[in-house]
């Protein structure tokens, strides 16, 4: 799998991060991602990410569930094994509505969770490189992809001038891999020693 060079800039405040994202983008660098401890409103717009199509997928899964339920129940109760239940007609739509609804929700929910995991590349055993441990705690970590022409010193200077508290150059695996983290350093223990 491919190793790539990244420049990492860490920010400790949201209001410093936003102008920095804008500056880095206008300077022409490609931001791989910004890792934040919590969901930051408007950051997706600032990064220029496109609208997610997860909800469209959800709609399609839902419709699939509805269709499955209607066709299965109507086939079972009218063709395959018609039963007389309380003298109701075999094609008893009101009685089916709860099941149709449940299957719609089930298909949509399960399908969307699976799609979400696929899009975010999340699965048991899947590992990804962590650019900074504190990204899950209190630091906003901006990761910029380098090309052959990127001057890392210029980029680091740009980040610092925009308020980065910490900058770093890392050569790291850009995708995911199965297995374990080779050099697992425990942030909690480090802090205790210090």
């Amino acid at each position: 799998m491919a190793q790539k060079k990244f420049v990492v800039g860490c920010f400790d405040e949201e209001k410093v991060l936003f102008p920095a994202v804008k500056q880095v983008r206008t300077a022409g660098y490609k931001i791989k991602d910004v890792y934040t401890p919590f969901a930051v409103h408007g950051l997706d717009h600032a990064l220029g990410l496109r609208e997610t199509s997860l909800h469209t997928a959800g709609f399609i899964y839902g419709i699939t569930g509805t269709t499955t339920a209607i066709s299965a129940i109507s086939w079972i109760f009218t063709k395959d094994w018609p039963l007389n239940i309380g003298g109701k007609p075999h094609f008893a739509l009101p009685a089916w509505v709860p099941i149709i609804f449940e299957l719609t929700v089930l298909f949509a929910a399960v399908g969307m969770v699976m799609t979400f995991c696929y899009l975010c590349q999340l699965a048991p055993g899947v590992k990804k490189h962590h650019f900074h441990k504190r990204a899950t705690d209190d630091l906003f970590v901006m990761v910029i992809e380098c090309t052959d022409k990127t001057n890392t010193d210029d980029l680091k200077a740009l980040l610092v001038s925009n308020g980065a508290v910490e900058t770093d150059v890392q050569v790291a695996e850009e995708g995911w891999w199965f297995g374990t983290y080779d050099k697992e350093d425990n942030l909690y223990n480090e802090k205790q020693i210090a």
Partner: protein
Amino acid sequence: MASIKEQFEIPGTLKTWSYALIGIGGAALLYGMFTKGFSSDEHEQVHFWGTLMYNTIFWTLVTNAAMFFLCFSTMAMAAWMQSFRRIAEAISTLVPIFGGITLMVLLYVVLSHNHHIYHWLDAEAVAKDPILKGKVGFLNPTFFVIWTTLTIALWSYFGYRMRQISLEADVAPMDAATAHKYNVRSMVRSGFFLVWFGLTVASTVPWLWLMSIDAHWYSTMYSWYTFASSFVAGMALIALWLIYMKNKGYMELSTSEHLHDVGKFMFAFSIFWTYLWFSQYMLIWYANIPEETIYFKNRVQGSYKPIFFLNLFINFLCPLIILMKRSAKRNFTLMAFMAVLILFGHWIDFYQMVMGSLMKEHVSLGWLDFGILTFFVGVMILMVARSLASKPLIAKYHPFLKESILHQV
């Protein structure tokens, strides 16, 4: 804040239109009252008073829903609605007016012993009827009059108290301690309204005013169903006024983000209404007990069939399909269209709830219904506009206003 238009000036066209609507509607109302309401023919009487009843109850509950919206938002410490809270407040000022009309109509019906509308008013029939005898502790004129008067008086009073505390946010900036105190006081006041709302709209009042028309029949879903119907229509009315004010260049602080959330309420509560509609229908359909199915007999199989299914089409399928997309809820034109459609749909819903029981044989939807509707729409437009013009459009020192301005969906 300097560039914000804080004062609403009522446009001339709005005045002309509302006076015209009140004129036409009032003429229809008066004509109907003297030719039908006071006629000696019982069918004509039932036709007129029933029509007036469902219109006035519908508009009272819809305007009251605006205050309910404000109160539960305050209770949940929601900030996003602060930028247009004066619209909801202005709509809720109609509660005393429409409530007063409702009170007069209901008192007239009960005190004139119109047992063609409320069968339980007929003392002789009740004495011979074991089912009605069992309900006499609840369905009797004394309780009806006292509870109805109390209901409308307390809705108006608690609503008035909520509007008063909102005006305090116009006076001066608040420091943290004052703001905290102010929030707690607002929450206490909204709590009073919410408790009373739960005891009335969410339970007793729909039983008394509407369900007791079919005195033998009952449904445990009925009050929730009525509440859902009036609440979704109330949100549609708020959306409609918000769009109107934006169109006229006011309400600069409210954006498509706010409209989006109002749209979510319209969408979600349309689904909620359908859930209750279906739960009520399916349980009765499944059990198939004659004293319960009687309610749906003329609605599903009889003359009300087209209206019954039109109701489901407008209030469920249209919001489901049209309002599902995010872009639809942020589109002012589409939202205005859907708001009008939902208001009309739930008006039709109230029509079939009341007239479907009073005039089982034939659908009477005609000049009288639309005439009285016109009257209420005219009064609503005029009074909401006046109330909006009477105070600033923004509660500018409200502690949550900034959060509302920054609101993003």
